[in-house]
């Protein structure tokens, strides 16, 4: 069953939804990266919650005009309008008043959402509103989607993706260097507006698939995940797109296999699983990698301190140090240094003595700043400088 879903074999509609979720995931991952880089990830939460009153109003207006009220394009248009109004409120509150952006986001999302709930209860009392299914916008509902709706979803997700890819250069520029961006003719204000516009489009398109409470996860989680794997922005953009697409595709496919698996939560949980995997396993910034790095460092400190103890003829009592030196063949089981151990100890001692002189001398101030008790002096000073240091170490003594 899952295999069929993954291979687009579950009928035309389900396949379109899966394809749409895939495209939407890619678009959201890419657009979210720019939000994340500008540290404005949660603005998308305000935008997505602000869509609800628009949906309700659109329904009421369409019914009042004698229409069906359930037409998806109309509802999404209303959602986009009220999301835009919410975004403007956030901008205005955080620029013109003393409130921070976080407070503005919280105020807008709760008030717009609350008003949306009021409108939904009004819709429920309308004759046409009994089976409106507007609650589906809260958590997404792809089951029983009409063919036209699925087509609209897939096409608009594709269009949003194309738009983001078109604008990615100026968006990157504005995220890292607004000044340079302005000089080259891209006004940061306009770029910001474009970025928010794209986020708004992603949100609106995703309403029916993921739902307005969880769509923000599609924008936030993939970029955060991608950030674990690389330090380069163009790679982050591509990785986030791939991760988002993967989450959308797998999530929609898994959810198509059973009725009790709603699309939105599944997509978010797949995305979160990818995040957890990266948090643990990513090279460089992952948890496992940093634990290993820490252990390596700890061992180097122990070996170094053990060698210095050997050099000054002190016995080694500390277990870990003993074991590490023994494993490296530097001491015998009874703690006496082997030949290799004596050589290494002498080298460590010489290193320490040289460092002591370097750190005492003002002319080596920059080199001395790199002293951490582990770095070999050869990594910091040139051979000429070391010769100079050595000549001062064995300064001729006056003969009395």
């Amino acid at each position, binding site marked *: 069953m899952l295999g069929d879903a993954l291979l687009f074999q579950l009928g035309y509609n389900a396949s379109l939804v899966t394809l749409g979720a895939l495209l939407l995931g890619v678009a959201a991952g890419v657009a979210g990266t720019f939000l994340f880089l500008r540290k404005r990830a949660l603005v998308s939460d305000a935008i997505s919650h602000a869509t609800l009153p628009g949906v309700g109003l659109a329904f009421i207006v369409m019914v009042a005009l004698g229409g069906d009220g359930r037409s998806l394009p109309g509802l999404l248009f209303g959602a986009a309008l009220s999301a835009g109004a919410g975004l403007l409120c956030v901008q205005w509150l955080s620029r013109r008043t003393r409130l921070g952006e976080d407070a503005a986001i*919280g105020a807008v999302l709760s*008030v717009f959402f*609350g008003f949306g709930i009021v409108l939904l209860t009004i819709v429920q009392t309308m004759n046409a509103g009994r089976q409106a299914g507007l609650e589906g916008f809260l958590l997404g509902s792809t089951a029983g989607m009409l063919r036209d709706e699925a087509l609209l979803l897939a096409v608009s997700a594709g269009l949003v993706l194309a738009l983001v890819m078109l604008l990615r250069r100026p968006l990157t520029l504005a995220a890292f260097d607004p000044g340079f961006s302005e000089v080259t003719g891209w006004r940061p204000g306009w770029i910001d507006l474009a970025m928010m516009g794209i986020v708004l489009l992603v949100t609106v398109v995703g309403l029916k698939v993921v739902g307005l409470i969880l769509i923000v996860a599609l924008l936030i*989680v993939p970029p955060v995940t991608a950030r674990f794997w690389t330090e380069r922005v163009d790679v982050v953009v591509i990785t986030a797109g791939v991760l988002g697409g993967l989450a959308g595709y797998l999530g929609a496919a898994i959810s198509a296999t059973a009725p009790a698996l709603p699309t939105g939560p599944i997509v*978010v949980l797949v995305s979160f699983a990818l*995040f957890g995997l990266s948090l643990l396993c990513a090279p460089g910034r992952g948890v496992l990698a940093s634990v290993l790095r820490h252990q390596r460092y700890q061992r180097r400190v122990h070996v170094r301190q053990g060698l210095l103890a050997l050099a000054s003829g002190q016995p080694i009592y500390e277990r870990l140090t003993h074991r590490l030196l023994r494993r490296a063949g530097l001491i015998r089981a009874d703690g006496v240094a082997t030949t290799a151990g004596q050589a290494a100890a002498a080298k460590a001692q010489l290193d320490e003595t040289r460092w002591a002189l370097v750190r005492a001398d003002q002319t080596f101030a920059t080199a001395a700043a790199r002293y951490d008790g582990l770095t070999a002096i050869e990594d910091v000073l040139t051979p000429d400088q070391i010769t100079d240091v050595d000549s001062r170490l064995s300064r001729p003594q006056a003969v009395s």
Partner: protein
Amino acid sequence: MMGAEFVALSLPPILIGICVAVACALPGNFLLLRGQALIGDAISHVVLPGIVVAFLVTGLVATGPMLLGAAGAAVVAVIAIEAIRRLGRIEAGAAMGVVFTAMFAGGVLLLEQSDTSNVHLDVEHALFGNLESLIWLDATGWASLLDPVALAGMPVELPRMALALGVVAVFVWLFWRPLAMMSFDEGFAQGLGLRTGALGLALVIISAVAAVAAFDAVGSIIVIAMFICPPAAARMMTNRLGAQVAWSVGFAALSAVSGYVLAGYGPLWIGASASVSAAGMIATMSGLILAVAAVLGPHRTRNS
């Protein structure tokens, strides 16, 4: 409207609404000043999985296990946000977004997978509660307020919420000076030997207590609105902390009362028959108050 029917049908929800609004607005002041306004948002999202897990473990919709489950989930979320922020060196907002969406998604999925059709537990209820249903059938009039037999039939949410409000108020009163110092100048507070880390965590936990107690009665949307809107509106009115807290309490109570009345009676005034969601209306009213304060408040800009 002020007779027996009012005492039985409208008084308990209004009182519960006021308790919820004030209990959330009090800690909200300090969260707002510390730049943690969205903590309330995160907490109220993660309460859902906590309650669902508590239900699955105990098999009943009872207050005790649910409060425990919700509080447990809130603590797990705070720890997870902090862990992700430090382990992955990720900005706090993004870490929060990752955690609360994932936990909320988990809660929704658990709810869909388990058989909760015979109990009153669903996502809509979690989001906007059911303030209107908290009625006091034993009341026959104002005299019932003094009648022990009738008082025993009061909705349990009211004493519980009043207790939560008491806990929050006592906390704010006891730690007023440290909280004030920490909110305005964390470095100075640390210099005086104040353990700001522990106090900050205590503030978050107290907020969680308020949110969790309120959640069952009114749903998460009022909670988020009350954490942010009344304190934000109060911030526009004054530069003094004491006055700001007082304003926020007033604004919170005003939103609760006006929101409930408008939701219950407003539609009747314009000729419609059914009432609208009280929780949504209270959030809307707090937003309107904030909008007025943001346009007219004497201290609305950064340098005033």
